[in-house]
Each structure stands twice: as structure tokens, then as C-alpha cells.
């Protein structure tokens, strides 16, 4: 239908031309064409499958119709176009065709195309089919189509039998025409042309597709529809037109038939063809039966209708062929070649096209019908091909019958002009009726489809407001990131049951280094000007240890020192004894004792260079260490060694080592008295004529002191550690110190003391003690001895008496004026002079003081009055007798001996003012220098007088006279002291004698005076009681 719509004027023009052409052809050659066709059929024995059907009908009514139509046409149409057409006809139909086609060409190629487009499917198809058919007829041998003939032969035969005569006539006519035609056209040429034409048509079809867009007017459509489709209305317009239309109608019919036939040609549509044939036969029979009268008319009509088609077709075909020839020649010869090449596949080619066209034809016919039936609904639906064909056939048959019925035979001539109109009109009506009937299913479908569509539309229109359609968010269906190269590598090559565990790199391989070395530091000190041997020093040892880092063995250095010190003494003594044994001099001297009272004797080696010409003024044994002896050497009478010339010397001796003094102490002033510290022998105190008190600390390192090399032997001369000289002027002694005594502040017994002394031997903190110093004026000073914890090698600025590095100092404690407090007025008026002082060992608070008036004062440290205040001699008168020696009884009883310068000896008890015993004139008036109880025997004491006589008193044996008297022969004995160990009962008791020459002899007293006797104390007590 669209194709129809798009038909343009050109198409109409074409069609008009065709019509003209047809008119011309119709006028003369309708019958001829038909005849010609029929002749062909007959000649070729129904080579024209398509035509056979037509011919059946045509043949039926040919005889009548032909005459009618001829008359009709001749009467009506020929009047107008007679001349032209005839002339042309006469000249040559082909020329006319050529002219026409040329015209067409001249008008425009578009026209053709549109023609092809519009009519397109129809006409082209028709043409194709026709051409094909022609080809089939002309090219293909009749053999090819014999199969079809076979089918159709039946009809043919039937019909042939009927129409034989007529056909023969036609044939003769057609032959004539053909001859004319053939003269012009060689059949072969025409074949070529046909082929070319077909291809051209193919081209046209393509063009047509291109040109489909062109708008076609409704009218044209109608017109063309009328023209091309079987529209009866058109035939109303005019006879001329009707002719044209006729022709076209015929063509269409022909087409449809042909299509039917074409379909029947094809095996697949054989059924349809069969059906069609059946229907046809039935119809024919019916018509024959019912309308035998009118058969002829019908058939004639049909044949009339058909025949012009053929004529026109052939004419047109020829024209087209000619045109194509020209075109071909004009344009390209390639086409021909192509055509020729395509000859082989030609049938299929054409057949395929036919198929397509048939479908379209179906559409058209449906459209036509629908257009007739319902003007509105043009585009609807496909009616099955078979059905449409049937319908058309039936419709025609019916219309023919109706015509016949309506038009009586006599009216034929009258109706001739009207008939075509009627034919066109009526069929339309009938067709519509028939269409309704036949197309019910289709219509039903169509209607249902439309109603469905409308329903859905309505539904959607109602639903859409209720529904919200929206765009969803986009769903991510798959997001597969690309695999990196490493994973890819691992996937491809790392599958072999391996797994990457770790990565090894050299991150932890580090080195660290320092090139700077540590700075070594040492601390040193120096002193300038260097006063002693050590000018500089420092804690080198400690630092060495620390620097070297050598682990020092864990040594208790203190214990080691103690051990070494004691062991050293023992070893030294042993060596000394060995030396004595090997040296006869010492041995001889020890044996060579001149004294009757002694068993043996030996000398301390005072033959030292610094001791020459020095007089020993004092000897003192330690009460704790009995073997340690102090010897005080006074100033030399002639200068010997320059340095020591003006210095007095104190030597510390160990009597077991008589070869040399242990230590040598020096001081600037002359020493009068000295003593050891009470608890240990580490301190030496000395009083000088200057009134200064000196302290030596024997523990001091020898290196700190002055060292001198004398005769190949190193001697260390120790200066006092502390000196009160020049300090403490307010309290210090202003006169020579006559006595120095240690005072223990705590009570002690000898035994305990001995043990304690050992235990405290080297310790800094022993039991505290004081030192009492008394000068000529009776001033008694008490000093506290303090040991410093810290050694200051640089010297102290506050303790001016302390030597640098010294650890011991004296602090003044108290001062006592003995002359005022101790003596009564009468005694005091005599200005007594205190000479010696002794402290009671059992009660250190008590002391007794010897004076130069023969009296012994008794006092206490705390100033309390005690009785007896004075110890008086037996004679009550006061004499100027100086008390030279006082000695306490060492065995516990409060007894003491007093030796006087008049030679008298008195034995006092602490509780009585007067002596227990008094021995006058025992020394023949010689002053007593020294007097001392024997340390081992309580009843024995020794006395030395100024004439170097030694007296031994044994009170148990004789309480009136000394038991022995020994005079030291060689030289004067300056002083004497006793050596002995009261704790031991070995009876060793020695007398140390210091001679004027400076020699010190030690005499071991004979055993009878040395060994203690049993219960000697009790006997002594009895003796004393008796004497009292």
C-alpha cells in the first residue's frame, strides 16, 4: 500500500502512456494478442502455465466476448485514438513502444523508478514474471515446462476441446502478428533483452527502495490503485480509461493468476495450486451447471479482460525490451555480459524474486480488497495467498455471473459501454461482501489485535500514573581488578607447591665503630718547696687498678697488715736470736755478767752513730707490752751529726731485738719524761724542759718522715706528731714537765687490760684515756688524746701543733694547781715543789704526788678531799727531802713505796698517813735514784742508789735489810727499770740499767728473786701486819 501511496505523477504518466499504448494495442490487437497467446499456448502446448488458466476461461467465452469486445472497443475507443494507434500499429508496434519508452526515459528515469517503485511491486513483478514467462516460453524450451503442462494439460484438454476452434482462429491471427513482430525482433534478441531487462528491474527495485521516501498524494494513490488494482470505479471514468484499466486489471488478474501459476510452478506451492485448481474446476463446473447460458459471456469477458493484457504485455514487453536494448547499447555492454553470465542461475534468481513479489502481491490484493471493502482500513493484514487467489477467482466468477444475470443477452450491446463500469463496481461490492465472508478470520485477528492494542494502551495509560518508574542505581555486577605482574608471575610459575615465605635482604647487617680514644686522666699533687722526701703524689695505685681493670684479689688488707706486723716481729726476734747465737761478741757480752745478782745479761745496741755521746736520762717499759722499752737520750755533749745535733732522741726498743732500736723519735727540746699510751704502744708521750708536751704516733708511715742514710743503714727519724709547743699558751706549762702519766678513764684490771690491749692493739678507737702532765710549779694538766679519722697531708690550719699527715692530737681538758689545793697551809708556806706523780692503777682518780719536802700528797682528779691528805714520814718534822721515786704495789693492794733523796725507803698504805715500814740508812745515806717492785714477786723490790748500788729487798726473808747488794762496777748507772712479765711464771725478771756512757744493760735477776713463792701475798700481808 505504501508503494501505492508513494506513486507519483510520473507513475500516473507512465500508466497513462501505458494506457494509451494499451488502447492502441487493444483496438487492433486485443484479439490478436489473445489469439497470439492462445496460439502460443497451442503451439507450445501450454508452455504458458500461467495462461492456461486464463485461457480456460478466455477460451470459453472467447468466441462471444471477443466479438463483443471488439465491437465495444472498436465502437468506443477506436473513435478517439484510432488514427494514431493504428498508424503506429500499422507501422510497427515496436516502434511505438520504443517511442513510448523513449518518452518515458526522456521524461525522467525517476518516472521509471517510481513506476517501478509505485507500481513497483506489481508492475515490476508483473514484468518480471512476464519476462520470465516469456523467457520461459521463448528461451526455455518447452521441455522444461512440460511438467507444468502435465498438470495443466487436463484443463487445457478440456478447454482446448471447447475452444479449439476459437483458439485456432486466434492462433492464426496471432501468428500473423507474430510474424510481424518477429520480423522486427529476433527471438534471441528479445531473450537477451529480457535478461537485461530483468536485471534492470532488479536495479529498479533497488532504486525503488531508495525512492520509497517520496510522498505520494492520496489521489494518485487512488488513481493508481484504481489503475493498477482492479478498481471498477476507474472504469466508470471513461471507456478509454477503462480500456487502460482494463488492460491493467487484466494484467493484475493475469498477475494473480500468474502468481498462482508461479506458485504452482514451484513445488512448495503446488498444494495451493491444486486447491486453486480444484476450486476453479468446481467453480467452473458450477458455473457450467448453473450458468451454462451465460458461460460464454463470462468466458468471453474474461478472455476479453485477459487478452488485452497479453497484448499490452507483449507489446510492453517488447517495448521494454527495445528500450533496454537501446539502453544497453547506450550504457554498458557489461550488463549483457553479466546477463549472460547470470543465465545459468536465472531461474532461481527470478523465482526468488517472484517469491518476494508474490508476498507483496498478496499484500496488494488484500489491500485492494480491503480498500474496496473498507475504505478506511487499507493497510491491514495478510490473507493467505491461496485464499486471496481463490477469493479473487470466485469474485470474478460471481461478478461475471451477476453481470450475466443482470444483463440480459439482448441488452448486451447496450451494456457494452456500461459493463466495464458495472464490472468494476459490482465486483467491488461483491468483493466486499465476499471479503467479509472470506476475511472474517483475518479481520477477526486484526480486530482482536487492535482491541488488544487498545486495551493494552488503555491499561498502560491507567497504570502509568499509578506506577513510579525510576532509574535504579547502577549495580556493580563484577569488579575484577587487573592482576599485577608479580601475582601473574606467581600464578604462572609459582604453582609448583611452593610458597614464598620471606625475603632475605641485608638490612640487619650493620657495623658501628668509633675512632676516638678515651682520654686518660690522673690526679697528682705537688708541694713546693719540698720539705720532705715526698714532694708529689697521687692516688696512682687506685687509678692503676681502676684503669687496668685487673681484678684485685679480695684481700682484707687490715688483717693482712696485722698479721704481717706481728709475724714480722716474731721473725725479727728469731733472726736476732740467730744473730746473737752466731756472733760471739753479743753472746760473750751477755754471758760476761759481772753482777752476782744476775744470771745473765745483755746490752742493747746503743752503738748507733746518732746515739754517741748521749746520756740516757729515762727508761720506760710499756705496761702492756713488757718487751717494749723507751730510752730517752739527751743532747750530745759534743756535736756529732749535724742534723741531729740539737735534737734529743727517744729510741723505741724491743728487748728481743737488742741490735737496733725499733723506732727513733726526735724532738727539738730536751725530753725529761716519757710514757706509752696505756692501752697500746702506738703512742709515745713526752714532756720537755720547755714545758711542751709531745706526742708521737708510731703507726705513721715512715716515708712521711725524715729519712737519713747513716753508715749504710736507713734510719727514719720521726718528728712529733703533735706538739703543744707554742700553742694553748693560756693553759700550757710554763716550766719543765717533770712527769707524764697516762690516766685510764675506765677501771681496768691488769689481766683484762692485757687481753683488751691485744684486741685493741691496732685499732684507732681504743678505750679513751687522758694524759696528765705535771711541771715543776705543781701545775697538773689533763689532756685528752683524740685520733683524727681523716688524714690531711697538707696540714691543718686549725691544729697548728699537728704535723702534716698526723692523726693524733691533744686537747686540753683541765688544769690543776697541786701546790695550792693539795697541801695544807703550813706545808704550803714552805713552797713545796712537786717532783713526781703517780696515779693509782686501781682507781685512776687518785694520784699521789712526791714533793721536795719529804711529803707525799694525795689528790683526786675531780678535786674531792680524800684521806689521808698527806703521807708523812715516821718522823714528824719536815725536812727538805725530795721524793725521788714512787712505785705502787702491782698486785692489787693499795701499797706504794717511796724512795727519798736521804736514802730512806718508806712503805705506805693508801689508808694511813704514816708509812707501814720505813727503812732508813739502808743505802748508807746515798740518795735513791730508782725504786721498783719486782713484777713477778710481790715481796721483792729493787732499789738503785746514786752510787750505782743495786739493792734487793725480800720482805719475806728479811724486812729490815736488803737481802742482796750489788754494785755496778764499771761506770755510773743513771737510771734503772725492771723488766718482767708478771703474767708468766717463768721467773724471768730483768733489770735494765742505763749507764752514763749511754749503754743500756739488761741483767736477768737470779731465780730466787724472780720465781714467785706460794702464797707470797698472804705472807707479805702477815709481815706487814706484824710490822704494823
Amino acid at each position: 500500500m505504501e508503494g501505492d501511496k508513494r506513486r507519483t505523477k510520473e507513475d500516473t504518466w507512465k500508466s497513462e502512456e501505458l494506457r494509451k499504448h494499451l488502447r492502441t494495442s487493444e483496438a487492433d490487437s486485443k484479439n490478436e494478442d489473445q489469439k497470439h497467446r492462445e496460439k502460443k499456448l497451442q503451439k507450445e502446448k501450454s508452455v504458458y502455465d500461467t495462461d492456461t488458466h486464463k485461457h480456460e476461461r478466455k477460451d470459453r467465452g472467447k468466441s462471444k466476448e471477443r466479438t463483443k469486445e471488439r465491437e465495444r472497443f472498436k465502437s468506443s475507443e477506436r473513435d478517439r485514438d484510432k488514427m494514431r494507434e493504428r498508424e503506429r500499429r500499422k507501422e510497427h508496434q515496436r516502434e511505438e513502444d520504443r517511442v513510448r519508452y523513449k518518452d518515458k526515459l526522456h521524461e525522467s528515469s525517476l518516472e521509471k523508478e517510481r513506476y517501478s517503485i509505485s507500481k513497483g511491486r506489481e508492475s515490476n513483478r508483473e514484468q518480471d514474471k512476464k519476462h520470465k514467462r516469456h523467457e520461459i516460453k521463448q528461451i526455455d524450451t518447452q521441455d522444461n515446462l512440460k511438467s507444468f503442462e502435465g498438470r495443466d494439460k487436463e484443463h487445457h484438454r478440456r478447454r482446448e476441446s471447447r475452444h479449439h476452434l476459437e483458439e485456432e482462429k486466434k492462433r492464426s491471427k496471432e501468428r500473423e502478428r507474430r510474424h510481424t513482430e518477429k520480423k522486427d525482433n529476433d527471438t534471441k534478441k528479445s531473450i537477451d533483452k529480457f535478461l537485461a531487462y530483468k536485471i534492470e528491474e532488479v536495479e529498479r527495485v533497488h532504486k525503488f527502495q531508495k525512492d520509497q521516501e517520496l510522498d505520494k498524494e492520496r489521489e494518485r494513490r487512488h488513481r493508481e490503485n484504481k489503475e493498477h488494482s482492479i478498481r471498477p470505479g476507474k472504469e466508470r471514468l471513461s471507456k478509454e480509461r477503462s480500456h487502460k484499466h482494463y488492460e491493467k486489471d487484466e494484467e493484475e488478474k493475469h498477475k494473480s493468476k500468474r502468481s498462482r501459476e508461479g506458485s504452482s510452478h514451484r513445488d512448495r506451492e503446488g498444494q495451493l495450486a491444486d486447491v486453486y485448481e480444484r476450486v476453479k474446476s468446481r467453480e467452473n463446473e458450477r458455473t457450467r451447471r448453473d450458468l451454462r447460458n451465460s458461460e460464454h459471456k463470462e468466458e468471453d469477458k474474461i478472455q476479453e479482460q485477459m487478452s488485452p493484457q497479453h497484448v499490452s504485455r507483449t507489446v510492453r514487453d517488447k517495448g521494454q525490451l527495445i528500450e533496454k536494448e537501446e539502453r544497453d547499447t547506450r550504457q554498458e555492454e557489461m550488463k549483457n555480459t553479466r546477463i549472460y553470465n547470470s543465465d545459468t542461475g536465472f531461474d532461481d534468481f527470478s523465482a526468488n524474486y517472484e517469491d518476494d513479489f508474490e508476498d507483496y502481491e498478496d499484500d496488494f490484493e488484500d489491500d485492494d480488497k480491503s480498500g474496496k471493502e473498507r475504505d478506511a482500513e487499507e493497510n491491514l493484514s495478510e490473507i493467505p495467498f491461496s485464499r486471496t487467489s481463490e477469493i479473487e477467482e470466485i469474485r470474478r466468477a460471481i461478478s461475471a455471473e451477476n453481470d450475466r444475470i443482470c444483463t440480459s443477452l439482448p441488452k448486451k450491446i447496450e451494456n457494452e459501454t456500461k459493463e466495464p463500469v458495472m464490472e468494476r463496481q459490482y465486483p467491488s461490492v461483491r468483493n466486499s461482501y465476499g471479503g467479509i465472508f472470506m476475511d472474517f478470520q483475518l479481520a477477526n485477528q486484526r480486530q482482536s489485535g487492535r482491541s488488544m492494542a487498545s486495551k493494552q494502551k488503555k491499561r498502560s495509560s491507567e497504570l502509568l500514573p499509578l506506577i513510579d518508574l525510576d532509574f535504579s542505581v547502577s549495580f556493580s555486577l563484577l569488579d575484577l581488578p587487573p592482576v599485577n605482574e608479580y601475582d601473574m608471575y606467581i600464578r604462572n610459575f609459582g604453582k609448583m607447591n611452593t610458597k614464598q615465605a620471606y625475603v632475605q635482604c641485608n638490612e640487619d647487617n650493620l657495623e658501628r665503630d668509633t675512632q676516638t680514644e678515651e682520654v686518660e686522666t690522673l690526679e697528682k699533687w705537688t708541694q713546693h718547696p719540698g720539705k720532705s722526701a715526698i714532694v708529689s703524689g697521687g692516688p696512682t695505685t687506685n687509678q692503676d687498678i681502676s684503669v687496668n681493670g685487673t681484678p684485685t684479689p679480695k684481700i682484707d688488707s687490715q688483717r693482712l697488715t696485722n698479721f704481717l706486723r706481728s709475724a714480722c716481729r716474731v721473725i725479727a726476734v728469731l733472726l736476732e736470736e740467730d744473730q746473737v747465737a752466731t756472733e760471739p761478741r753479743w753472746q760473750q757480752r751477755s754471758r760476761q755478767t759481772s753482777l752476782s745478782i744476775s744470771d745473765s745479761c745483755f746490752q742493747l745496741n746503743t752503738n748507733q752513730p746518732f746515739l754517741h755521746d748521749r746520756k740516757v736520762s729515762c727508761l720506760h717499759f710499756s705496761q702492756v707490752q713488757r718487751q717494749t722499752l723507751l730510752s730517752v737520750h739527751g743532747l750530745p755533749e759534743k756535736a756529732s751529726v749535724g742534723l741531729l745535733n740539737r735534737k734529743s732522741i727517744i729510741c723505741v726498743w724491743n728487748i728481743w731485738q737488742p741490735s737496733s732500736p725499733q723506732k727513733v723519735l726526735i724532738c727539738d727540746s730536751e725530753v725529761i719524761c716519757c710514757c706509752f699510751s696505756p692501752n697500746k704502744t702506738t703512742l709515745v708521750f713526752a714532756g720537755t724542759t720547755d714545758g711542751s708536751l709531745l706526742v708521737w704516733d708510731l703507726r705513721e708511715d715512715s716515708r712521711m718522715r725524715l729519712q737519713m742514710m747513716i753508715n749504710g743503714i736507713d734510719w727514719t727519724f720521726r718528728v712529733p706528731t703533735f706538739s703543744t709547743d707554742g700553742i694553748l699558751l693560756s693553759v700550757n706549762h710554763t716550766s719543765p714537765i717533770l712527769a707524764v702519766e697516762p690516766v685510764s678513764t675506765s677501771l681496768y684490771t691488769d689481766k683484762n687490760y692485757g687481753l683488751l690491749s691485744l684486741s685493741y692493739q691496732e685499732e684507732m678507737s681504743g678505750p679513751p684515756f687522758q694524759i696528765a702532765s705535771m711541771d715543776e710549779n705543781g701545775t697538773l694538766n689533763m689532756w685528752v688524746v683524740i685520733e683524727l679519722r681523716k688524714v690531711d697531708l697538707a696540714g691543718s690550719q686549725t691544729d697548728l701543733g699537728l704535723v702534716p699527715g698526723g692523726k693524733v692530737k691533744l686537747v686540753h681538758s683541765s688544769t690543776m694547781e697541786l701546790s695550792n689545793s693539795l697541801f695544807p697551809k703550813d706545808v704550803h708556806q714552805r713552797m713545796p715543789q712537786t717532783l713526781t706523780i703517780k696515779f693509782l692503777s686501781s682507781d685512776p682518780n687518785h694520784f699521789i704526788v712526791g714533793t721536795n719536802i719529804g711529803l707525799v700528797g694525795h689528790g683526786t682528779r675531780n678535786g674531792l678531799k680524800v684521806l689521808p691528805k698527806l703521807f708523812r714520814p715516821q718522823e714528824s718534822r719536815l725536812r727538805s727531802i725530795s721524793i725521788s721515786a714512787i712505785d705502787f704495789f702491782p698486785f692489787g693492794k693499795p701499797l706504794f713505796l717511796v724512795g727519798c733523796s736521804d736514802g730512806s725507803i718508806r712503805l705506805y698504805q693508801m689508808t694511813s698517813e704514816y708509812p707501814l715500814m720505813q727503812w732508813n740508812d739502808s743505802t748508807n745515806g746515798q740518795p735513791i735514784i730508782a725504786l721498783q717492785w719486782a713484777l713477778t714477786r710481790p715481796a721483792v723490790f729493787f732499789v738503785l742508789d746514786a752510787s750505782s748500788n743495786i739493792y734487793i729487798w725480800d720482805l719475806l726473808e728479811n724486812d729490815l735489810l736488803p737481802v742482796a747488794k750489788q754494785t755496778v762496777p764499771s761506770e755510773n748507772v743513771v737510771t734503772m727499770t725492771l723488766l718482767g712479765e708478771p703474767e708468766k711464771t717463768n721467773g724471768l725478771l730483768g733489770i735494765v740499767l742505763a749507764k752514763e756512757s749511754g749503754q743500756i744493760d739488761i741483767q736477768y735477776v737470779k731465780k730466787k728473786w724472780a720465781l714467785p713463792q706460794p702464797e707470797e701475798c698472804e705472807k707479805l700481808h702477815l709481815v706487814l701486819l706484824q710490822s704494823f
Partner: protein
Amino acid sequence: MAATGELGPGRAPGNTYRLRPGLQQRFKSSTVKECIHTILMEKLANVEYVPEEMPQLTKSLSEMIKDRLKEEGFDRYKMVVQVVIGEQRGEGVNMAARCFWDADTDSYAHDVFMNDSLFCVVAAFGCFYY
């Protein structure tokens, strides 16, 4: 169509439409996904990617899944099943979908199956017929 003709304009046509699926027939993504998953696991467990076989496989899979989903009884639902199978060669793939629909009733479910040689993405869309 005869029915609509009978209904005529007089009646309220709105009442006859089902605008929402029943609660039981609603398109449930989880169950659909499960269906897809089971089918994929069953059919693709040991499948190697062979380019020639894949078109057939995708078609059969989609048909299978569609039929399976029809059994689920999503009444009045139009099912669209899309199956994409690709080879695993390390390339990145990104697939997305976007729909113009009624979000109240329509839904979709998808599942991905992957093995060493291929990946398969199945998306099933359910659109409700009103």
C-alpha cells in the same frame, strides 16, 4: 478483549489491576542468588575456558537458570537472565547494570563464579507485570 468490552467505562477499572506482587511471590534476591549460585557451582565446577564452547554454555546456563527461576513461583514476573563468561587472564573487568523500572516491585540478583580459568557473571532481573 471481550472482557474489557463488557467492563465498559462505567466500572472502575483501577480495581482490577494488581499493582504489587504477593508477599510470597515477590522477587527475592537472596533466593534467586542462591539458585544461581547452586547452578553455577554445579555446572561450572571443573569447567575450563574453551572459547568454542562458551557460547553454547552461556545459552544453556541462561536457559537453565531461567527455568529454575520460573519454578520459584515469582508470579507475574518477567525474568531476564544474562550470563557472561570470560576468561581469566589477569585483565581487569568491570561490569555494571542500570535499570529503568519500578523499584518497588522489580529487583535483580547476581552472582559471580570464578575459577582458575574463567569467571562467570549471572544477573537475573525480575520485572513485574502489572
